[in-house]
C-alpha cells in the first residue's frame, strides 16, 4: 500500500469508526432504524475496505457486527446495555488495529489482529444471545397502527397526504417503496432518462413523491441522483429491477417504506442527522432541521464526498489546453535561448507549466482495478463452462493508466484471459496425468516500470507448441522451410500475433470467433504499446503488455534525419554512439552493431521512413542510437541529435501516413512540426 493510499484508507476508516461510535451511543436512547441503517452501512464499508486489503480479522469482526445490526434493523428491537458494550468494544478493537496500520508496525498489528479475533467471537456470542431474546420491541414496531402516528411526529419529507397515501396503499395490499436512483455520470438529456424511468414505474405503480421535486428533475436541476416514493403491487426489488433494465442507470437501491416506519424514523429530528454527519454538527444545527430530511441527507452525502465527479469532456478540454500551453512554453524557452534572454520569470513559467501538466495528467489516471474487477466473475464462469478448475491471481490493481488507454485495454486483456483459460489451462484429469495440480493458475499482474506500465497475463497451462507454429507457417505458405528453420523459438512464437493465425486444435466457442491475437496486438500497438509472448510447452504461457503511462505528452529526443526533424520517445533510447566509434559491421545482407557483446540489427531510419535511399558508406560523425524496450534491442542510425523536449502528441491521419513507425506529430518549441516515431516495428525486426 502506498503512503497516499494508506493515508486515505486510515482517514476513511476513521470516519466510519466515528459513525459507528456516535451511532451506537445514540442507540442507547432507543432504536432508530435510520441510525441502525447508518451503522450497518459503516460496518459494511469497513468490511469492504478491509477485504481489499486481505485483512481477514477486520472482515470477520465487521461481518459479525453487520449480522448483529442487520438483525436489529429487521426487528427494530431495543438493544441492551451489554449489546452496546460489546459493539463499542468492537469499535475500540478496530481503532486499535487502525492505529497499528497507521504506524505500520508489524508487532503492534499482529497484536491488534489477535484482539480482533477475540472480539469477533464475543460479538458472535452476543448475536446468539440476541436471537434467543424475546422480540417485544420488534412486534411493537411491526404492529404500530398507522393511525397512531400523529402529524407532529411525521418526518418532514412525508407530509400528511403522503402518509395517507401510504396507509391507503397498505390497506389495499400494495407496497410503498423508496427508490434511490443514480444515473450514469455521462447520461445526456437526464430529464428524458427520468421520464423513461417514471414511465417504466408508472406501468406498475404510482409515484407519489420525488426528491428533488419533479419540476427540478424536469429542468435537470439535480446531479445524477434522485429518490422516488412509489406505491405498487410489485415488491421493492422488482421495481428496482425494472429501473435497472433501462439504459444509463448506474445504481438503484430499493427500500420498503411503511407508514409506521416513517413515523419511527422521526423520533427527534436531529437523530438521523447526527449519524450521517458527525463532522458537521454546526451545519446540521443550522440547516438540518429546516430542510426536508431526505434533502438534508442528500446534502450531507454530498458534503461528505471526498471525490468529485467531473464530466470527462471537461477534463479532456483541460488536457488539450495544457498541451497547447506546453507548446507555447517550449516556444518561449526556445525564443529566450536564441535571444540570450534569461529571467526568473521564464524559469517560473517553465516550472509552473510542468507542475500544471503533471497535475492535469494525474487527473486522467484511472486505476487498472476498473478493468481487473471484472475478471474474477468472468474467469469463474468461463472455467465452469469449460469444465476446468482455475484459480485467478490479480496483482497491481492499483496501477494507474491514462483513462483513454484503460478503455482500449479492456478487450485485449479479456481476450488474453480467455485464451489462457480456453487454450492454456488443461482439464483437471489431463493436468493430473501431467503431474500438475488439478487447479490451473492464471495470474494477471500490473506494475509501473519507469514511464510505462507492464501488464502480464501468465498461466501454468499447456503452453504453445512452437513446432506446431513452425509447421503451420510452412503449410500456409507464410514462410519457406528455410526461413522457418532460421527463426528462433521466440520469433516463431511472435507469429501468433499475426492476422489469421491460430493453433487451437479446435475452434472453441470462446476464443475462436475471429477475434484473434492479431486484434489484441493491433489494439495494444494502437495505444502505443507492445506485446510479447513467452511460452514453454507443457509449462505455461506468459504474455507481456507494455503501455505508455499516457498518450498525450511524452518526453522525446529530437533527431535530424535527411533534413527532417523527428521525435523519438526518450524512454526507449538507452545509448547514443558516434558511428565512427561504433563497431558496425556488414553481416549477410545487412549491418549489425556489436554493442557490449550483443549483436544488434542496424536500422537505417532514413531509408525505412523513405526519406532517402540506403547509404553505401556511413558518415563517421552520424549517430547510432541503441533502442531498448522489453528486453529487445535494436540500433538505429540518425544524422544528428538536436535536443530533448516534452512533446504534445497530435494524431496524424492514417491517410497522410501509411508508415507503421509514424505515431503522431507535434509542434516543437521552434514552431516547426516534427513527426513522432514509434520504434516498435523496428524492435520487432
Amino acid at each position: 500500500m502506498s503512503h497516499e493510499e494508506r493515508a486515505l484508507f486510515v482517514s476513511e476508516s476513521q470516519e466510519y469508526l466515528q459513525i459507528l461510535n456516535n451511532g451506537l451511543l445514540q442507540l442507547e436512547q432507543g432504536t432508530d432504524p435510520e441510525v441502525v441503517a447508518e451503522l450497518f452501512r459503516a460496518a459494511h464499508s469497513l468490511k469492504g475496505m478491509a477485504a481489499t486489503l486481505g485483512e481477514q480479522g477486520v472482515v470477520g469482526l465487521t461481518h459479525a457486527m453487520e449480522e448483529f445490526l442487520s438483525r436489529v434493523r429487521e426487528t427494530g428491537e431495543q438493544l441492551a446495555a451489554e449489546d452496546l458494550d460489546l459493539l463499542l468494544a468492537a469499535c475500540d478493537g478496530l481503532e486499535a488495529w487502525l492505529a497499528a496500520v497507521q504506524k505500520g508496525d508489524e508487532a503492534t498489528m499482529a497484536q491488534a489482529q489477535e484482539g480482533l479475533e477475540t472480539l469477533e467471537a464475543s460479538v458472535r456470542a452476543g448475536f446468539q444471545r440476541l436471537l434467543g431474546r424475546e422480540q417485544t420491541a420488534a412486534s411493537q414496531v411491526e404492529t404500530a397502527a398507522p393511525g397512531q402516528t400523529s402529524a407532529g411526529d411525521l418526518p418532514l419529507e412525508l407530509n400528511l397526504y403522503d402518509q395517507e397515501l401510504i396507509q391507503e396503499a397498505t390497506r389495499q395490499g400494495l407496497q410503498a417503496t423508496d427508490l434511490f436512483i443514480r444515473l450514469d455520470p455521462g447520461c445526456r438529456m437526464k430529464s428524458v432518462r427520468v421520464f423513461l424511468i417514471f414511465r417504466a414505474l408508472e406501468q406498475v405503480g404510482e409515484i407519489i413523491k420525488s426528491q428533488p421535486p419533479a419540476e427540478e428533475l424536469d429542468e435537470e436541476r439535480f446531479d445524477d441522483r434522485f429518490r422516488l416514493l412509489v406505491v405498487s403491487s410489485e415488491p421493492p426489488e422488482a421495481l428496482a429491477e425494472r429501473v435497472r433494465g433501462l439504459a444509463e442507470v448506474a445504481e438503484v437501491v430499493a427500500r420498503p417504506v411503511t407508514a409506521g416506519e416513517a413515523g419511527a424514523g422521526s423520533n427527534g429530528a436531529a437523530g438521523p442527522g447526527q449519524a450521517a454527519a458527525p463532522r458537521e454538527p454546526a451545519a446540521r444545527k443550522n440547516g438540518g432541521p429546516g430542510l426536508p430530511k431526505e434533502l438534508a441527507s442528500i446534502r450531507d452525502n454530498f458534503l461528505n464526498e471526498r471525490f468529485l465527479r467531473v464530466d470527462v469532456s471537461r477534463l479532456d478540454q483541460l488536457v488539450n489546453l495544457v498541451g497547447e500551453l506546453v507548446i507555447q512554453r517550449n516556444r518561449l524557452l526556445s525564443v529566450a535561448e536564441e535571444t540570450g534572454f534569461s529571467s526568473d520569470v521564464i524559469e517560473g513559467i517553465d516550472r509552473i507549466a510542468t507542475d500544471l501538466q503533471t497535475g492535469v495528467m494525474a487527473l486522467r489516471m484511472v486505476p487498472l482495478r476498473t478493468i481487473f474487477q471484472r475478471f474474477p466473475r468472468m474467469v469463474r464462469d468461463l472455467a465452469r463452462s469449460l469444465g476446468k478448475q482455475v484459480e485467478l491471481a490479480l496483482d497491481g490493481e492499483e496501477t494507474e493508466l491514462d483513462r483513454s488507454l484503460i478503455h482500449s485495454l479492456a478487450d485485449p486483456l479479456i481476450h488474453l484471459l480467455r485464451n489462457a483459460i480456453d487454450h492454456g489451462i488443461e482439464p483437471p484429469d489431463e493436468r493430473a496425468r501431467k503431474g500438475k495440480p488439478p487447479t490451473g493458475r492464471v495470474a494477471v499482474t500490473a506494475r509501473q516500470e519507469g514511464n510505462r506500465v507492464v501488464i502480464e497475463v501468465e498461466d501454468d497451462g499447456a503452453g504453445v507448441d512452437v513446432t506446431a507454429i513452425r509447421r503451420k507457417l510452412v503449410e500456409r505458405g507464410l514462410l519457406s522451410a528455410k526461413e522457418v528453420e532460421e527463426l528462433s523459438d521466440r520469433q516463431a512464437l511472435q507469429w501468433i500475433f499475426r492476422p489469421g493465425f491460430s493453433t487451437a486444435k479446435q475452434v472453441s466457442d470462446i476464443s475462436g470467433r475471429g477475434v484473434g491475437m492479431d486484434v489484441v496486438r493491433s489494439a495494444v500497438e494502437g495505444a502505443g504499446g507492445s506485446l510479447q509472448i513467452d511460452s514453454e510447452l507443457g509449462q505455461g504461457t506468459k504474455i507481456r503488455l507494455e503501455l505508455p503511462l499516457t498518450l498525450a505528452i511524452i518526453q522525446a529526443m529530437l533527431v535530424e534525419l535527411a533534413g527532417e526533424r523527428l521525435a523519438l520517445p526518450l524512454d526507449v533510447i538507452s545509448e547514443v554512439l558516434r558511428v565512427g566509434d561504433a563497431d558496425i559491421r556488414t553481416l549477410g545482407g545487412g549491418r549489425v552493431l556489436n554493442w557490449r557483446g550483443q549483436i544488434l540489427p542496424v536500422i537505417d531510419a532514413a531509408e525505412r521512413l523513405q526519406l532517402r535511399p540506403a547509404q553505401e558508406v556511413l558518415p563517421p560523425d552520424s549517430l547510432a542510437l541503441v533502442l531498448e524496450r522489453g528486453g529487445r534491442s535494436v540500433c538505429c542510425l540518425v544524422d544528428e541529435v538536436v535536443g530533448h523536449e516534452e512533446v504534445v502528441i497530435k494524431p496524424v491521419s492514417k491517410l497522410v501516413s501509411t508508415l507503421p513507425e509514424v505515431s503522431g506529430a507535434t509542434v516543437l518549441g521552434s514552431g516547426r512540426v516534427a513527426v513522432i516515431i514509434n520504434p516498435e516495428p523496428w524492435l520487432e525486426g
Partner: protein
Amino acid sequence: MALRVLVVDDTAFMRMTLRNVLERNGYEVVGEAATGVEAVELYQSLKPDLVTMDITMPEMDGITAIREIMKMDPQARIIVCSALGQKNMVIEALTAGAKDYLVKPFQPERVLEALEKLQAQHT
C-alpha cells in the same frame, strides 16, 4: 442469431457510423433509410428486430414515422436518435412509442447499452 437492425438517418455519415458500431458488435444491419417514408416502407418489408430512428428528416420526420410503424406493429422496438436540445421532440417520440433514446454524437458504448437493455426487456 444476430439481431436485425434498421438504421434510419438522413445523413449517410451517421448511418455509416451506426452501421459500423452495430456490425462490429454482432448486430446485423438489414437496411438503411434516409427518410421517414423509406423507414416505414423498409420496416414493412424487412420486419427488423430493432430500429434506430433519427428525428429530423425530409419527407416525414422520425416522430411521424414512429407513429406509422407503431400502428403497423405495436411490438416494434424503436430507439430514437436526436441531437442535444431536442428534448421535447425526444419526449414526443417516446410518447409515440419509441422505447429509448440516444443523443448524438453517438458514444458506441451507449448505443450498445441501449440495444442490449432493450433486447433484455423483451426476451
